[in-house]
């Protein structure tokens, strides 16, 4: 909603519906809320907590009470975030750059910093749970390479969560102490160094953007393989590329600071390392396309989301090349080009994959089917609205429209209006999705246990699964082998072809 307000504000070059401070708070709110409250916990916690035990064939995650603590920490973090609003909001941008964040007149900085600190713990506990579950609670006979790729993605995400989030914790702790007690670590007047804060912040935040995108890739690997009725292409390379992204993600945080006074030696090192991260994503994209070769592609809603993911993530990934090379980065840094780039990757990537995953596991979660027709319309709406909104921002960015600008020069007016129209189309798309998903809860037909013909373990139990997940221990096989699954019209789902020919 904050995003829609921000866009409406941009219809006219000068003030439209709110003052400068309000606008600054609005885009900071949009940034901080989306990052800390939605996208980081999004796929790992919302989908992962449900699907991981099923896919692994376990009764529950390794530490169920820790999982519960993680959920309550998320609630407390959200309460702190809302508290920061009541106290007066904060307008530092989600990056909290000092010395502005320690001297901004708005009091909301400390509550949101504590909120994000607590959410960090929630994220650590989720990651911790996933690693232990994947290591210790795999079903008998499920080796590391019989696991669905979504679990590899969650494993890679968990590694990042464990190794990066504590640095966010210490950064926010230092920020709070700096602002409250004037410790002077980042305050130039007391001998501190503001660029050091940027190092601290981005050391966490770049791996954090991979926390956001890697699970999305995991979901897409599942969707494309199931809906092309074809074994995923080169399972090991996709699995290893997930881990590679997780590890390389730690080496590249400097590319956020090319123009902020980093020494040119480090600029060179970080620019080189940044390109190393682009490779695994490229491999994944090629493998997904290769999976569809000679498949039997059924365009159901989850598949539509997967295809639009591929389209949008290709743009998002390739525009990263512009920002990775030093020369063009100088021109494009902190402009709308960057805004468009990360929205393409985060929105076009994570949110679209989240919707795809949601639609894919919705029958399994709720035991109700949603209407596929409405799903396809909604996906189309979101796709068009998204492109309209953010492709125009690429053009604005290259023309030098700086980021986080309340007022802008007239030459960008038409593009801003186009972008705002796109936002409204997106809004309609999302409302439609919300509508028919809730509607399916109320009036949806009963979902079969395997509506899409998936071969991983979660489809072997009833939907919604019983408390102990599996009534009888699941049969572990190759998660992408769809050989003996046949569509059974009367239950509108797939079931194993009983070799003995019994119906």
């Amino acid at each position, binding site marked *: 909603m904050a995003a829609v307000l921000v866009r409406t504000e941009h219809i006219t070059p000068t003030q439209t519906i709110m003052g400068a401070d309000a606008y600054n708070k609005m885009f900071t709110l949009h940034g901080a809320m989306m990052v800390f409250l939605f996208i980081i916990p999004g796929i790992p916690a919302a989908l992962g907590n449900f699907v991981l035990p099923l896919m692994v064939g*376990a*009764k*529950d995650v*390794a*530490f*169920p*009470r*820790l999982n*519960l*603590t993680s959920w309550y920490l998320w609630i407390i973090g959200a309460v702190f975030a809302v508290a920061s609003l009541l106290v007066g909001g904060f307008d530092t941008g989600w990056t909290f750059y000092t010395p502005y964040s320690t001297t901004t007149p708005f009091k909301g900085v400390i509550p949101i910093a504590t909120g994000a600190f607590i959410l960090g713990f929630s994220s*650590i506990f989720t*990651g*911790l*749970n996933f*690693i*232990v579950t994947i*290591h*210790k*609670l795999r079903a008998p006979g499920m080796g590391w390479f019989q696991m669905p790729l979504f679990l590899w993605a969650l494993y890679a995400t968990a590694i990042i969560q*464990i*190794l*990066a*989030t*504590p*640095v966010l*914790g*210490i*950064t926010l*702790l*230092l920020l709070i*102490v*700096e602002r409250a*007690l*004037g*410790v*002077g*670590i980042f*305050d130039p*007047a*007391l*001998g*501190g*160094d503001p660029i*050091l804060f940027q190092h*601290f912040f981005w050391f966490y935040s770049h791996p954090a953007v991979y926390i956001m995108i890697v699970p999305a890739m995991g979901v897409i690997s599942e969707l494309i393989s199931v809906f092309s009725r074809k074994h995923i292409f080169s399972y090991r390379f996709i699995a290893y590329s997930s881990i590679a992204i997780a590890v390389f993600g730690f080496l590249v945080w400097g590319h956020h600071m090319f123009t902020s006074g980093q020494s040119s030696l480090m600029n060179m090192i970080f620019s080189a390392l940044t390109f190393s991260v682009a490779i695994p994503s490229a491999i994944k994209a090629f493998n997904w396309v290769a999976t569809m070769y000679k498949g039997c592609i059924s365009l159901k809603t989850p598949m539509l989301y997967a295809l639009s993911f591929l389209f949008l993530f290709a743009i998002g990934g390739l525009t990263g090349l512009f920002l990775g090379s030093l020369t063009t980065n100088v021109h494009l840094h902190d402009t709308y080009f960057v805004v468009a780039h990360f929205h393409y990757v985060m929105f076009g990537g994570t949110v679209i994959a989240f919707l795809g995953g949601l639609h894919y596991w919705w029958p399994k979660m709720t035991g109700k089917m949603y209407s596929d027709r409405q799903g396809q319309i909604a996906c189309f709406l979101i796709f068009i609205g998204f492109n309209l909104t953010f492709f125009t921002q690429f053009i604005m960015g290259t023309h030098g429209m700086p980021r986080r600008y309340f007022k802008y020069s007239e030459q960008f007016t038409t593009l801003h209006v186009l972008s705002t129209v796109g936002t409204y189309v997106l809004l309609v798309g999302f409302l439609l999705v919300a509508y028919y998903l809730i509607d399916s809860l109320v009036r949806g037909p009963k979902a079969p246990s395997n509506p899409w013909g998936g071969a991983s373990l979660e489809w072997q139990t009833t939907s919604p699964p019983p408390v*102990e997940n599996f009534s009888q221990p699941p049969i572990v096989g190759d998660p992408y082998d769809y050989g003996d699954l046949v569509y059974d019209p009367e239950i509108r789902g797939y079931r194993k072809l009983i070799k003995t020919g019994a119906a």
Partner: protein
Amino acid sequence: MEAETTQSHTSSEHNPHLAHHFGSLTQQFDSGKLGMWLFLATEILLFGGLFCAYSVYRANHPEIFIYAHQYLSKFWGALNTCVLLFSSFTMAWGVRCAQLGRQRGLVVCLALTLLCGFVFLGVKYVEYKEKWQHGLLWGKYYSPVHHHDDSHEAASGEGPAPQEGHPAVASAVAQSMTPTVVLTTDAGVVVERSKILPAPTGPGGLASLSAGRESHGDEPRNVQLFFSVYFLMTGLHGVHVIVGLACIGWILRRAVRGDFGPGYFTPVDLVGLYWHLVDLIWIYLFPLLYLIH
């Protein structure tokens, strides 16, 4: 506290301590250990951030650290190290007693560890109080009292606001309307590089041109940096010691109740791991802060 160490005690058919979703006791124990080591990894990274701040500021301003370490007494530091090492020893011994089922030994060891923890905190309190009196605090509260008289008017919490003095530009840029502004630049500390004269703050610049502390005497600039880093590190470590003590107290209560035996002692082991980590961090903190040469 560490929820993952308390397995739910639903009564499974053959062992009350086996949580419902684990196959066997070893699987549960290994999961607990793995989970704990992951949590320790996060702690190491948390302190890693502080060590990074320490090393960055020490690499770039060694003179501050060399000058300021004289305020830290090696004796108290060494004492603290021995206290923590001993507590680690008794903790490990306690874990051994739990494994062998010696409940009385376990209770004694845990009590000893608890005692050592409090001694450690006591020593820290003494050190902090002594620094507080000398005004050697962090950031803007840093106002060293050079005359070591006994008068305790040393700046209490609220030190004087950062002085206005800025060696290079002593200009008082009046925001008056007079177009001509007299800009006097005194010699100030001659450094090999000339000072870039910032444009006079123009019409009412926001900056209160305070460049940290006035440097009087041989004290290098920005000594409060050392104390900021010192208080941050030892403070956060102190918080972790307090959390550790709470856990040990909780384990002690359960040990007295007789929960732990050879078959099930995971909580003791995990809290032991946590305590050893706290000791580990102090082992690195001690030389870095106290033994600067």
